[in-house]
């Protein structure tokens, strides 16, 4: 029996270790948003939000202090920060489409071994929403998907081919789950890190494509 899976905060902490000084980073809904809590202390990055702000501060927790004219794409109130800039939507997506976003962290429903991402249409829904995720998946310089390794009812999410409609083909660079960290490479998915207590066989049993074991395979650091 495999050990426990990582919680969402720990997954976010692991993703935040990818933040490098000077990066422009866009965080999607859900677990990606949590990554802003774990920016390493010696790293300065600027967060971009689709609705038109760059370099904003932390998410305001007390609705009494919120200003309805300062929100992120998840409609969470954001704090103003020195150096923040504001812009309209076409400008915001010039930044995305023009390749000016260094890193996008997105949620996922399915990821394939080629790095195809499906995250916009929930099973059983007639209508889905593309939002800004498609633009980011296609055009950010680097895309990290953070998600549970399998669905709540045990369906595989890391597949040879996605069965759900794609957000973007061959766009994902790194997959961080509650069980493992995997890089998408031309040779296939490389298992780089595993949650403490897990074996490569156990991770493989929850993953459809064959995993290539990294020579540097190690446990995910939890601090």
């Amino acid at each position, binding site marked *: 029996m495999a050990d426990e899976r990582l919680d969402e905060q720990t997954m976010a902490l692991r993703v935040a270790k990818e933040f490098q000084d000077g990066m422009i980073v866009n965080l999607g*809904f859900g677990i990606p948003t949590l990554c802003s809590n774990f920016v390493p202390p010696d790293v300065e990055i600027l967060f971009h*939000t*689709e*609705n*038109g*702000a760059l370099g904003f501060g932390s998410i305001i927790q007390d*609705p009494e202090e*919120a*200003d*309805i*004219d*300062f*929100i*992120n*794409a998840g*409609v*969470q*109130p*954001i704090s*103003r920060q020195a150096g923040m800039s*504001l*812009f*309209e*939507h*076409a400008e*915001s*997506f*010039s930044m*995305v*489409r023009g390749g000016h976003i260094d890193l996008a962290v997105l949620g996922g429903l399915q990821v394939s071994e080629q790095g195809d991402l499906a995250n916009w249409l*929930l099973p*059983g*829904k*007639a*209508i*889905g*929403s*593309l*939002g*800004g995720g*498609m*633009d980011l998946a*296609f*055009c950010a310089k680097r895309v990290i998907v953070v998600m549970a390794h399998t669905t709540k009812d045990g369906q595989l999410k890391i597949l040879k081919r996605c069965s759900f*409609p*794609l*957000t*973007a*083909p061959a766009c994902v660079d790194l997959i961080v789950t509650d069980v493992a960290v995997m890089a998408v490479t031309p040779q296939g998915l490389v298992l780089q890190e595993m949650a403490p207590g897990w074996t490569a066989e156990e991770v493989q049993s929850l993953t459809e494509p064959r995993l290539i074991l990294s020579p540097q395979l190690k446990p995910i650091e939890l601090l």
Partner: protein
Amino acid sequence: MAIDKVVGSFDEAVADVADGATLLIGGFAGPGECPSCLIAAVARKGAKELTIVGNLGGWGTNLFPVIRERMRNLIAFPPEFVDHGLLVERGQLKKGIFSYPDAPSPAMLMPVERAVAEGKAELELVPQGTLAERIRAAKSGIAAFYTPVGPGTIAEAGKEVRQFNGRPHLLEPALGGDFSLIRAHKADRYGNLVYRGTSRTFNGTMAGASTITIAEVDEVVELGELDSEQIITPGLYAQRVVVRPARLPPWDEPL
């Protein structure tokens, strides 16, 4: 006769929104950036067969109390807030062109989802950046453009695909309207506009992308009070300006 774009009432400002009109409706998803009074005026006027272009599909009045409660710990939506979901609920929509039409929870159904399921409206789903750029193109006199976003996905359907720099691109047409209904912070009588914070969003993009742009603002100031260096939307893009009250009245009261 001096230039003066300030209109006395919201009902007057939308009086010529006819059946079959295409409306670009600003805002993103929060309470601050939504032109609620203009939307309410279009609902009161009752124009039908509208094509509505916007980010969200719109909550409408039935779902709004649920959302308001759900968002209570994040941000306060004013009690009388309405978005273009109101127009969908009232059967005024023929076609929606949206980036985010469905509810974020499978347990909820947005009015446009219901209207499409019942065969009462059509939906065109557009990636958000492509939507913004199609609107910008209309404002800028660009008929169409090639974008790298969308090949190999639902966004490719019916589009020309062409290679540039070894990468497939989709040909996307400009998307303008008869009316842009937008929210801004301050205006002067020339129609110069400034916005507050992230409320610029699609409002700033849609200004000038329709034959008539109508701005719902907090305040009209004297010429010269807006710093020329800081004006975001130059006045030629806005044809009408209406001041909204500090407190929103119920949507069905004349305003």
